[in-house]
């Protein structure tokens, strides 16, 4: 089927400033900013403020920070920003599981208001009723979306939310005197790796279910894993493959029967808003990433919020505080009798919660459903096109639709041309695109993961696929070209071997200078 408009692949080149490391810009004597002065009266009275410090704790040698004037600092970081391809700049559908959707700029305006930025978390409650109202309302929205009974926004990200879930599960069993006996958590290989890793922090042994021929975890496998040692199930659904497990409620049933609790990793919720809920599958706990499904921007890796929800019977275990609404007032509740305590300071990353609030308010129930529908439509549209690409495949669920993302494979391409998934990713950078492989381990060989979300137009989706198509063409005709990419990016092929070697790795500039003696940019 041919398009009326032939989609062009861009003649892209990323900005390339060859910008040195900040320390290399230092000129003795330069100042970037001056700080508030101490008033003369105070100087006269206190004289030498540092004299109260005992000698052994005084810092006599100034920290070796660079000395740079203000404009040069600005220029430096602005140039670095141009060396960065934010979602706002590209068709960012190639970061599967990350939900790189549009982060509305109006929300950025709202969080920059002093009524947000200049609030201290311990101010008297009467002075932050607006903030508490926002938090409370998002709590109620998420209760509706998940079907669960109480949310906390304290975890600073999805993985932290999983830790909180594992902590609550542990505390619950402890209350029943079964914590020692129940020392196993069950998860699946296509769930997020943190489902296992965070549970391990709480001392749990992990049993990971591998997939069946359909790419799904099997009830039979689960039955093999449950026992009287089962503390709970932590599972992502739909999994990273984008396939929804239709037997998910059978899973929770089996685990409940064994006496365990069930935690739902709903970081991949973008395709199921208003379609299916945690409660319907009988989960006891679930979490959403406000910086994914709910549009708060990713910020290069945070700040973020993993909003954690629980059924009524687990409310007393939540980290404190939570927000309550009584008699027309919002307040912070600290006295939850079985609380796990804290997973993060204060009550959460308020700006992120506010952005989620604004996003939900601007969409409403109909809008959220549309988000889910279009995200899934976009994903299946791209799926069809990629299946038509030579060398690419979408393992599992053959002939069936996916939810919000797909884990694809370049296995055939690699076999036939020697070009690997990694090579394709680097070549995509030449067109101004990101592409991601997969979480570890690579169960799907030569993987690549695409999650379109609802934010990109049909034309943009076509543009992205056209990029992949071009690279596939190149792989078959001239694989060396792909294997030596990127050419139009900020730098060329990076030598990663030193990063594995304790004698060579350099995590800071000073370490680099110590080990290698000179500027890496010097010839």
């Amino acid at each position, binding site marked *: 089927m041919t398009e009326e408009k032939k989609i062009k692949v861009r003649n892209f080149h990323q900005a390339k400033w060859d910008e040195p490391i900040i320390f290399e810009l230092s000129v003795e004597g330069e100042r*970037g*900013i001056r*700080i508030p002065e101490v008033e003369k*009266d105070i100087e006269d009275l206190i004289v030498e403020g*540092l004299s109260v*410090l005992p000698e052994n*704790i005084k*810092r006599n040698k100034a920290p070796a920070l660079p000395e*740079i004037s203000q404009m040069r600092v600005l220029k430096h970081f*602005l140039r670095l*920003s141009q060396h*960065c391809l934010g979602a706002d*700049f590209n068709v960012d559908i190639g970061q599967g599981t*990350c939900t790189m959707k549009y982060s509305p700029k109006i929300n950025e305006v709202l*969080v920059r208001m002093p009524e*947000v930025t*200049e*609030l*201290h978390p311990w101010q*008297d409650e009467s002075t932050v009723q*607006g903030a508490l109202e*926002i938090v409370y309302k998002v709590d109620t929205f998420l209760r*509706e979306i998940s079907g669960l009974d109480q949310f906390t926004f304290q975890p600073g990200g999805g*993985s932290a939310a999983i830790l909180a879930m594992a902590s609550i599960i*542990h505390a619950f069993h402890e209350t029943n005197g079964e914590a020692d006996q129940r020392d196993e958590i069950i998860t699946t290989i296509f769930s997020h790796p*943190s489902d296992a890793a965070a549970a391990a*922090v*709480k*001392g749990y042994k992990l049993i990971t279910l591998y997939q069946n021929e359909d790419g799904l975890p099997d009830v039979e496998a689960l039955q093999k894993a449950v026992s009287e040692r089962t503390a709970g199930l932590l599972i992502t659904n739909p999994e990273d493959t984008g396939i*929804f497990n239709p037997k*998910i409620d059978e899973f929770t049933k089996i685990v409940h029967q064994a006496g365990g609790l069930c935690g739902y990793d709903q970081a991949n919720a973008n395709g199921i808003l208003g*379609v299916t809920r945690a409660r*319907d599958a009988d989960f006891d706990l679930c979490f959403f990433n406000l910086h994914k499904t709910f549009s708060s921007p*990713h*910020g*290069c*890796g*945070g700040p973020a919020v993993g909003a954690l929800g629980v059924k009524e019977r687990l409310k007393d275990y939540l980290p404190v505080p939570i927000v309550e609404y009584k008699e027309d007032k919002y307040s912070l509740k600290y006295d939850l009798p079985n609380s796990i305590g*804290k997973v*993060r300071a204060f009550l959460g*990353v*308020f700006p992120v919660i506010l952005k989620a609030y*604004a996003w939900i*308010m*601007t969409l409403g129930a109909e809008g959220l459903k549309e988000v889910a529908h279009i995200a899934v*439509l976009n994903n299946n*549209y791209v799926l069809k096109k990629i299946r038509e690409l030579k060398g690419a495949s979408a393992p599992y*669920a053959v002939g069936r639709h996916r939810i919000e993302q797909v884990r694809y494979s370049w296995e055939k391409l690699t076999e036939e041309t020697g070009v690997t998934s990694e090579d394709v990713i*680097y070549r995509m950078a030449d067109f101004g695109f990101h592409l991601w492989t997969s979480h570890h381990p690579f169960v799907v060989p030569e993987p690549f993961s695409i999650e379109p979300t609802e*934010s990109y137009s*049909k034309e943009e989706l076509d543009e992205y696929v056209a990029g992949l198509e071009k690279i596939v063409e190149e792989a078959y005709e001239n694989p060396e070209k792909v294997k030596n990419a990127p050419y139009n*990016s900020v*730098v*060329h092929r990076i030598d990663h071997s*030193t990063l594995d070697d304790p004698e060579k790795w*350099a995590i*800071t*500039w000073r*370490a680099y200078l110590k080990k290698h003696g000179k500027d*890496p940019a010097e010839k």
Partner: protein
Amino acid sequence: MKLILKEERRFEMSQKDKRVHPYIPNSVPETKAKMMEEIGIKDIEELYTDIPEHLRFKGKLNLPEALSSEYALKRHVESILSKNQSCKDHLNFLGGGCWQHYVPAICDEINQRSEFLTAYGGEPYEDHGRFQALFEYESLMAELLDMDVVNVPTYDWCQAASTTVRMAGRITGRQEVLVSDTVSPERLSAIRNYCHPVMRVKMLKHCPETGVLDLDDLKIKISSETAGIYFENPSFMGFIEHQGEVVSNIAHENGALSLVGVDPVSLGVILPPGNYGADIVCGDIQGLGVHMNFGGGLGGFIATRDEERYVMEYPSRLFGITKTSVEGEYGFGDVAYERTSFAEREEGKEFVGTHAALWGITAAVYLSLMGPRGMQELGKTIMQKSQYTMLKLSEIQGIKVPHFTGPHFKEFVVDFNGTRKKVKDINKALLSKKIYGGKDLSSEFSELGESALYCVTEIHSKEDLDSLTRALSEVVSPNRKY
């Protein structure tokens, strides 16, 4: 007749239009239809056939009606936010893990850039800038901390402290950590949850007069089971732990690690913990150019020496610098870690995910602007202003400040026991004067009675501090009735 038709058409259009959302390009019915046709479906529902009926949510989610325009959204949210009274028009003396420092304009300029704001996990090619910015963050912090390895930021100090303790457990193979009882209650709570049930937390007493660690108690409690000793310096309550070196020595003599939490704002004038024997240093970067954000501006750091056995235990990402295929170019990447031998009882290296990278980049900008002299001057300014405040407040009858004797940095405990008034009431009274008084410590640190934690930074002018003095004088005066 014509008029009615026009009306109808307009109505028709606006109905159609309502289905199209500015954030969802393909919600345009024609586009949707075209795409559905291309993939061979007639109804979106067909895409959900994998989800069985009994798991389907029926009906409509009970959420507020959508705000139809961006203008409506702005007005709506602004009206809610206007119920907040910020530290812009109130004098704020609250600290305790979130502090009001000056945020240079360039910090906000950079962290608002879409390139950084909306980037995430691209490769060190097209996202080279993100790697370089965070590598520079690590490097600048390294100079402030005088240590060679610093991680990409984690959630906050609570997480950094928790991971620090678990790292000590893994490195030493031991299961107990000794924690000073003057650390932040929030951090203690997080450490407890993070350790349980794999590691045990034992508390260390402090000297009631000075607040510093009770060395005798330490010597009794330390054993061959101790993985590390965690204390904070400056303490949560602001006093300076001057015995750092002694504590580190005791730790090392017993095969344990010295673990210190520090506010990096203090490091322009106070010796970094690595210089008095700390093996793992942690803390928060919020004071380095990030707005308070109601507690949302936090970012945790962990620093160690550049030794394999430490580096291998970080759960966080560590960005390193390296070469590329082109001479003269440098590139970045994750410093990967592979263990070479297994030790009994070892568990995984925790987890890593989305943490607080944008604040890390912000801190990099801040430290680049401040430079060595900026940080020195900042420390000095804070010392002078806080000492001035303590001096003035101590002139008020009934107030003992600072409660602990000895030098303090930025924060100090104001002891109100002599006024016979409750901190709760004092703060309410201050509130009516548009002042946020220090955090009430009476419930968490009951041995201090009616005491509050006050924080003075470079943003407080002499006028501000004199206002506080005047206000408190009035509020605690015996003549004042409640």
